[in-house]
């Protein structure tokens, strides 16, 4: 259970606590500023400024702590990886609390670094209210109802994307989810920051970890196709030429669920992060 869950979860995960989705939580600082930024004309500046300043912020890539110290002063907007089933639960919670469509639009990183601008970013209804008026040059906005959003997320999960929840900062009354993205290494700035620059402030690991059962893996495709391996965005799947099966590296697992979702042989066990006590502080 992460720190957010302890403080804001009230017995469950923070993003499964209905209180975090209350309408009045969205109206306080910093959430209302984040909503205004994401739903406003300055959205691109809000998101791309981080990338624009990245080269200056990375003084010595050999010491990630320096990178993190700089980012601590720059970033409040942060996120957490979730598996598909939790992303779907979040959608249900938002529709149950305030029956309001989600806005689907292009991914900032992918558009502005020249990748295929897949329309895969989802923003909560409150951001959907102002976006189209404030950013008329963007023609890819689409409001989705509950079933459409869930279908979209399932489709992204089948494409082996990583789902992450994003918020705009932490405040005593709660942390509302403002966005759900579905992205991939190395396009995603969140994943890239973690994997390439070891920058912790940004995307956090999820509440679960995977574990591969050696014998099931070997009975399956562990000695042949090893189907799961290309789909770990975080380098948490390793193959041993001696043991002849795939290993998970618990310290690197973000709990995205891709390996579990793809393994046709049931070789991937799925656990709460606390199953490995040593991971309690590993986020």
């Amino acid at each position: 259970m992460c720190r957010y869950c302890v403080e804001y979860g009230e017995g469950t995960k923070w993003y499964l606590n209905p209180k975090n989705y209350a309408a009045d939580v969205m109206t306080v600082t910093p959430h209302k500023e984040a909503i205004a930024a994401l739903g406003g004309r300055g959205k691109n500046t809000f998101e791309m400024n981080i990338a624009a300043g990245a080269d200056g912020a990375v003084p010595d890539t050999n010491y990630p702590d320096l990178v993190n110290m700089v980012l601590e002063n720059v970033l409040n907007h942060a996120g957490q990886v979730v598996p598909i089933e939790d992303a779907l639960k979040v959608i249900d919670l938002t529709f149950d609390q305030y029956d309001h469509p989600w806005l689907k639009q292009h991914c900032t990183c992918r558009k502005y670094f020249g990748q295929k601008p897949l329309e895969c970013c989802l923003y909560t209804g409150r951001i959907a209210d102002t976006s189209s008026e404030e950013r008329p040059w963007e023609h890819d906005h689409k409001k989705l109802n509950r079933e459409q959003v869930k279908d979209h997320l399932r489709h992204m999960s089948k494409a082996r994307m990583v789902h992450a929840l994003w918020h705009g900062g932490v405040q005593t009354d709660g942390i509302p989810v403002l966005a759900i993205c579905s992205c991939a290494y190395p396009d995603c700035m969140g994943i890239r920051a973690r994997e390439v620059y070891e920058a912790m402030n940004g995307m956090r690991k999820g509440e679960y970890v995977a574990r591969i059962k050696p014998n099931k893996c070997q009975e399956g495709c562990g000695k042949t196709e090893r189907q799961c391996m290309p789909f770990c965005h975080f380098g948490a799947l390793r193959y041993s030429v001696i043991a002849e099966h795939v290993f998970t590296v618990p310290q690197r697992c973000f709990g995205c669920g891709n390996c579990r979702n793809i393994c046709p042989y049931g070789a991937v066990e799925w656990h709460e992060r606390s199953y490995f006590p040593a991971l309690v502080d590993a986020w």
Partner: protein
Amino acid sequence: MAYEYSTPRHQIIYNKEKCGNAIECLKCVDTATNKVGCMCLGWMNTVDPDPKTQKKWEDIDWKIITSFMPDCFGCNACVEACPKDALALQKAETRVPAARIQRSDIVFCYTLKDGTKISTRDTVA
């Protein structure tokens, strides 16, 4: 002895006047991301746009940003892709790796070729 160290990296010098409005071209970004695969370059607006007067992507003024230059290995493809000569590669000075002290409780005495002594303890000569 303390080393002032920062990771050396190649730099791309961007000339906005020569480029103009980056959205009209974006060949450098496309080359870096989709052909070379380095993803060092991106693009973004110069100021927050005004929805009352700017209705299309092209109405907004865009610039190139150099974001992930530690990944640059100086292939010059982005510079060559630019039809307006708006990019220039400034190569980094490569240098010898720094001597790194990993543990402060063990005295590491390094003597470099030029006689410089590196030690964690002040009292060691």
